[in-house]
């Protein structure tokens, strides 16, 4: 016979499993910082974190795009950017970008998830 308090025990196990998955997700989307020169096509769809100077900033309707320079350069694209994002990205300011590596017209780029000032 199933007892009422077993539901609480199972719920506790689920909550624990949920926290583990949440921790795994947070780790997945907040990776270690890498040098841009080490990013290649084999890293497509991976999450990376890069840090460098912001250059060639462009703002269009829903897209903010610029380059980050840490000795090597890569294009950064942020879709549906917020006011806060636009303020953080100034010419030659140091920015930290977390995002997914993608390929656009043969060039590697990072689709930004998070933009921070260092």
């Amino acid at each position, binding site marked *: 016979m199933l007892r*009422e308090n077993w*539901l609480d025990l199972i719920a506790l196990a689920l909550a624990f499993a949920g926290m*583990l998955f949440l921790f*795994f*997700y947070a780790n997945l989307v907040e990776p270690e910082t890498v040098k841009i020169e080490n990013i290649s096509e084999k890293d497509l769809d991976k999450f990376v974190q890069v840090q460098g100077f912001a250059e060639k900033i462009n703002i269009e309707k829903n897209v903010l795009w610029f380059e980050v320079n840490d000795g090597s350069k890569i294009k950064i694209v942020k879709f549906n950017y917020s006011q806060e994002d636009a303020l953080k990205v100034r010419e030659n300011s140091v920015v930290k970008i977390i995002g997914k590596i993608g390929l656009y017209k043969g060039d590697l780029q990072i689709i930004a998830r998070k933009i921070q000032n260092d």
Partner: protein
Amino acid sequence: MIETFLALFFFTIIGCCLGILTGLIPGLHINALALLLFLFVAQGNEFVLAVIISMSLVHSFVDFIPSILLGVPDENSFLSILPGHKMLLDGNGIKAVNLTVLGGLFSGIFALIFSPVFVLFARKIFEVLPMAIPGILFFVIILMILFQKNKTKTLIVMILSGLLGILVLRNLTVSNSLFPLVTGFFGLSTIIASINNEPVLPKQKTSKKLIGKMEALESSFFGFFSGTFVSLLPSIGSAQAATIIQKLTNVKNSEKYLIILGGINTVNILLSFFGLYAIGITRTGVAKIIKQILFLEKEHFILILAISLISIAFGVVITKKISKQIIKIVEMLPYKKINISVLIFLLILTLVFSGILGLTILLTATSIGFYAITSKINRTSCMTFLMLPTILIYLGV
């Protein structure tokens, strides 16, 4: 990383707390709150995703409390009033709520285990299944007539309910039209019958034993199975799925039926998020809103899974706790006065949400529901109010 983890966990808990409110307060819908959030947040916000998913899942557990303990229906859980009220009058109200919790928990676990397969095959299921729906519903209607002792009166109830459903849902412009219908058929008619019979609410038992393990697993599986269809098919709601599965499996036992209902409710909302992730379909209002806020990418599968696990756990624990507190309050007050208060509350709510026309619909549906009670016809016969319009939609009429 720790920051992101803590922030997501915090927003999940916020969502869980909102789910308690939407589940307990009739008329406060998860869609309305989700829409409010949408209006005030930036795009691409995963924290809002956490709030919406957790709110919806906790709501799917908590909304059985007002249905079962007070007879106040929700558009997804109203069928629980019938077996739930019966168990309440037998002194097993808490057990009735716990059975829906069991259903939500076990069916939810089945759904989460099945979710990777669901994601892979969602499109195929979505393309094939609609062809079978009119036939299944028609078959169920025939079964509903055949299983009743008084077939003539059953047919009368089914025809009247079906006609009212077609008139209201397809022809009239009434805001929140489903509310007066479900309230009339299953809520108000039960309350009036209850007042008429001068009920005395017995002391509610606190039995720790729920149901046999195999019965629990079997019923939860049916709940998961039905909830999967509901999550994919337009115009098939939890109530229709529950009626179909009840007739096809011939479940007469109230306890098993409540587990199935609990399962369908949770699985429907859970798999609607995975359906959105897999093929971009939006079967629920909250899924539509998520689609506006965030483009779901591969890694979001893990996030949806994580939030779902935490929210289901929260829903289980909080529903059990709240139902015990509410039952203590209900036991202290004269049951007839509670019934009268709920009756007045439902009338006012209908007037506020659906106007004078809504009130007319409510009274008509109540009359049909009350006729079913006095004629000793199974009130699920009134489900034709949803089934007939659904058949017409799938036939393209």
